[in-house]
């Protein structure tokens, strides 16, 4: 029962969406299935939050390695949840002044806005900014001209790196030298466009078609009940 019911739901929903896509009469069925999906997606968010807390509570209670970080996660989770749900510092919507919680949850100056502005924004921006250093070290290691393939990668990366800046234009058109028109295609920014338009697009299209075929095959296996891996182990 525990596996059969989800299996039936998945197969029915899958076929409904498939039929709704091809038969105009069944279009409304597809919309209903999507409404259900959206409701379930909200439920999944709650489930995800619950699971996160369960895992971290287990880590803290077992005092496993790094349990201090779990304490921080739990405190932040509940702090944000309480401040957000209670709309701390949010004024009622001017259209509905009698409803205390009718205001915009991220109103400037509110508790959640403060968390967003002073914690979420700097922390996530810092994480993204650190990528620059990781990319730099990874590039330094990857772009060694060990063989023909690595050399090709190195040359391509060099062209794209320069083509993505004003240097790509400047090398070919500056105060000392101006590139003749018939050689303009060699300018780094033009070469970058060519690399993106031709070799990159060809490769990406091939990969995309391959993925699409894989998705079709996997979807069919799920729809026919052959692939049940998404149900988990229990």
């Amino acid at each position: 029962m525990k596996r059969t019911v989800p299996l039936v739901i998945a197969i029915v929903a899958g076929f409904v969406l498939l039929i709704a896509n091809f038969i105009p009469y069944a279009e409304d069925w597809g919309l209903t299935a999507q409404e259900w999906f959206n409701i379930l997606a909200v439920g999944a968010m709650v489930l995800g939050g619950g699971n996160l807390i369960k895992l971290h509570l287990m880590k803290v209670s077992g005092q496993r390695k790094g349990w201090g970080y779990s304490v921080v996660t739990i405190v932040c989770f509940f702090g944000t949840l309480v401040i957000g749900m209670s709309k701390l510092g949010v004024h009622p919507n001017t259209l509905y002044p009698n409803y205390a919680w009718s205001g915009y949850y991220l109103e400037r100056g509110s508790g959640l806005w403060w968390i967003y502005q002073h914690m979420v924004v700097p922390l996530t921006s810092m994480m993204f900014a650190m990528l620059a250093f990781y990319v730099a070290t990874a590039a330094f290691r990857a772009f060694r001209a060990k063989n023909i393939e690595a050399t090709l990668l190195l040359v391509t990366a060099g062209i794209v790196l320069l083509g993505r800046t004003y240097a790509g234009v400047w090398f070919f058109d500056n105060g000392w030298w101006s590139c003749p028109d018939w050689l303009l295609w060699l300018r780094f920014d033009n070469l970058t466009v060519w690399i993106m338009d031709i070799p990159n697009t060809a490769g990406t299209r091939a990969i995309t078609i391959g993925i699409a075929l894989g998705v079709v095959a996997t979807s069919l296996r799920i729809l026919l009940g052959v692939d049940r891996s998404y149900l988990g182990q229990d």
Partner: protein
Amino acid sequence: MLLAVAIPILTKTVFPEVVSKQAKMVFDAIDDLPDGSRILLSYDFDPASQGELLPMAQAFTRHCSIKGHKQYYMALWPLGSPMVDLSIDTIKSEYPDMVRGEDYVKFDYKTGGEAVIRMITQDLRGMFELDSRGISLDDIPMTKNVKNIQDMDLIINVSAGDPGTKQWVQFAATPFGITTVSGCTGVQAPQMYPYIPEQLAGVLGAIKAAAEYEAAIDEAYPSIADNPKAQEAKRRMGPQLVAHSLMIGLILVGNWIFFMSRKRGQA
């Protein structure tokens, strides 16, 4: 690397931009529409990628506002909604004649990703009964006659991942033929080029393309060049130039050391 990025920022070094074919395609997709066209802008990114994507999102807002397009904002990412607020702040401060509900409207974040797109291609009210201020769409002048997003003249998607441009192409642009342009991160851009020109009318890849797009707007509407906030992407190209040059220099030095050490090993 820290200095390479910091010095151009502190010295406010700005380099000229040559508008590429891609940036021109995106510019034309918006500019060629008759004034007052309906444009859906979906901000599918968060503060982590705002350094790369916010300047182009703001450029989209300014361009649409100059053209007097009706702007319908939404977000498929929970933290995309505050990004939309930044664009609305831009409209309020730089285009005070524009009226909320008549010229621009915001729909709050809804969970579901691609399911949200699928739903609003058929029935906008099935997903958004109210705007972000809690007003019924039937009472808002610019939404009361909109049944679904097939009524839009253009979709602009600013994307940092999934759900994002790929989903807009799969579930809105391709099945319903809605003209769509995308502004995305540099990592995503190579995956988006194959959709051009049939499924996407143009792609702005990362901050470089945003700077070119700003330059295209400057050329067409010179008055905006006086607004320093409208030159944000161009300003960020200074650090990119120095950092990229440093990277290339280090890679060349690294390779020279590699060859020298290999030569010594062989000897």
